[in-house]
């Protein structure tokens, strides 16, 4: 059972290393090097319902009573712990890690391949791809010459920190580089699962509804930037860009918006400038 949410049994999730051709299953928690702390709360008894009748002290009796134990156990604590480990790992290697999220079909992989092809001479980039099945997206990334691993979640609907941690071991990104994590296409669940990234990048295409930001507020609130893609199709769709940006700022006043087309290339320079500035910092 997946220790963070259980929606996919971690044993179904696979990591494919496209450089070596090896495929491995996600190692269960006990076989990895994470320490797993379970602190049993000694002495945290809050209520104790049992009373002795003084006359019966000498009698041996068995009585079942209730004992309350205060736990204060964060249910997503395990994922958050591994995410924090990932965050520290990235920081120690001066790696900028970004979590790309969107609904399926928004153009994440196309934008990623365009970004890699345009920037690979100046910046070191590698990718962790997340999909339920197939290595199709990872193959497209591999064609750019960039290092990539594919995580297949099976029935799972989001990447979690453990998958990313093991993906990073396979990927082995160099120091001073960028790791792009392309999450499973889903505007709901990935918002709950920290991967240890520096920022979430939410991608929305103009072929979707302009009110997506208020329909999926958790995701848009959790993201540092919103990229509006497929701007070349704007003349053919009823998408109100200004209204969309207003909705996004309503949910997240700090969110920065980039409008671009990975096909024609318009607007890409703003996204590239943001990346370059993030790497320097």
């Amino acid at each position, binding site marked *: 059972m997946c220790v963070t*949410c259980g929606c996919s049994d971690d044993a179904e999730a696979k990591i494919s290393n496209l450089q070596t051709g090896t495929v491995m299953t996600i190692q269960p928690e006990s076989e990895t090097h994470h320490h797993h702390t379970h602190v049993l709360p000694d002495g945290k008894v809050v*209520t104790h319902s049992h009373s002795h009748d003084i006359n019966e002290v000498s009698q041996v009796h*068995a009585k079942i009573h*209730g004992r309350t*134990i205060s736990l204060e156990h964060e249910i997503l604590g395990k994922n958050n712990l591994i995410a924090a480990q990932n965050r520290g790992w990235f920081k120690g290697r001066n790696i900028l890690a970004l979590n790309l999220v969107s609904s399926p079909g928004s153009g994440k992989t196309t934008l990623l391949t365009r970004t890699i092809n345009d920037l690979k001479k100046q910046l070191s980039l590698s990718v962790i791809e997340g999909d339920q099945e197939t290595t199709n997206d990872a193959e497209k990334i591999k064609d750019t010459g960039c290092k990539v691993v594919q995580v297949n979640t099976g029935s799972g609907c989001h990447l979690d920190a453990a998958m990313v941690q093991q993906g990073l071991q396979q990927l082995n990104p160099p120091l001073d580089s960028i790791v792009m994590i392309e999450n499973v296409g889903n505007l709901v669940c990935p918002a709950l699962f920290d991967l240890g990234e520096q920022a979430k990048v939410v991608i929305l295409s103009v072929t979707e509804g302009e009110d997506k930001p208020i329909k999926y507020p958790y995701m848009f609130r959790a993201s540092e930037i919103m990229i509006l893609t497929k701007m070349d199709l704007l003349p053919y769709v009823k998408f109100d860009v200004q209204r969309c940006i207003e909705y996004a700022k309503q949910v997240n*006043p700090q969110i920065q918006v980039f409008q671009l087309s990975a096909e024609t290339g318009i607007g890409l320079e703003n996204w590239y400038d943001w990346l370059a500035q993030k790497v320097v910092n």
Partner: protein
Amino acid sequence: MHEIGITQNIVAIVAEYANGAKVRRVLLEIGKLSAIMPDAVSFCFDVCSQGTVLEGAILEILQIPGLAKCRQCGAKVPLEKPFGVCSCGSKQLDLIAGEELKIKEIEVDEVCV
């Protein structure tokens, strides 16, 4: 979303703490802005606890309302959604309550001899 998986996780965590003892009661804290539906957790709990030391246990859920602090004027702003507007007009709100998702306490049978 994920209530079935999260509930399975709750059952596993509580069973580990109970260490073989029968569980009478589980108290959860679920924030109203946590994106987790308490009714779905309750529904799943009955199913997930079958055959475990939690079978028959009472599930109590404390729902924590959303609360934010306005960056502009410092006022506390109650929230039903993860965003909103302060009475001073500012939308710059920091969430300070309502995203909780924790097992607060459990009550187990203890045999006293």
